[in-house]
């Protein structure tokens, strides 16, 4: 729902910082901007969705520029959309992916979509910071 002009907030002065924080920690941009309910919802839902992807033995795709496997690169970019949880999972040795697991493809879908949804959340945080919502 679009906010009325009178309801719109003043543009935040540190919009780029908001975007960085929103990407790094799902929901943190909205929390920073005072949208507590939305921020907590994004934090819980997106983190849980990414964790579910790992639990289902999905793979965290490595960043690289192997032109012979362009879909792997795209999947890595989508995975990276979740922000810091991507790196935390890597550091913890998670996300190796077990191809023979029956849930492997499901796990990939959960992790990839969590990253893509967080990209939408970042765009929404940008709109809020701009005073458009």
């Amino acid at each position: 729902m679009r906010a009325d002009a009178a309801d719109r907030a003043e543009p935040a002065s540190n919009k780029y910082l908001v975007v960085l924080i929103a990407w790094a920690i799902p929901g943190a941009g909205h929390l920073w901007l005072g949208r507590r309910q939305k921020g907590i919802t994004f934090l819980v839902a997106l983190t849980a969705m990414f964790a579910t992807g790992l639990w289902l033995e999905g793979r965290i795709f490595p960043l690289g520029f192997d032109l012979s496997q362009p879909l792997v690169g795209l999947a890595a970019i989508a995975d990276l959309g979740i922000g810091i949880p991507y790196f935390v999972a890597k550091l913890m040795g998670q996300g190796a992916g077990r191809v023979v697991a029956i849930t492997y493809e499901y796990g990939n879908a959960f992790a990839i979509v969590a990253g893509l949804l967080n990209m939408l959340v970042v765009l929404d945080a940008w709109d809020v910071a701009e005073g458009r919502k």
Partner: protein
Amino acid sequence: MTSHLGLMVVFALFVSTVFASLMRDEPGDQLRFGARLFAGFVGAGIVIGWLLYPLPL
């Protein structure tokens, strides 16, 4: 959990939760919109699944 239907329901729950929060501002509106999205995702998944059932793979 390895049930395709169960995982689809969990997936739909996450996606509809995020979309409802993104697209609606009031908690009541979010709940109603999220419930409709969730029902749409699950219903469409089941219908498309049955439509694809006769196809050979």
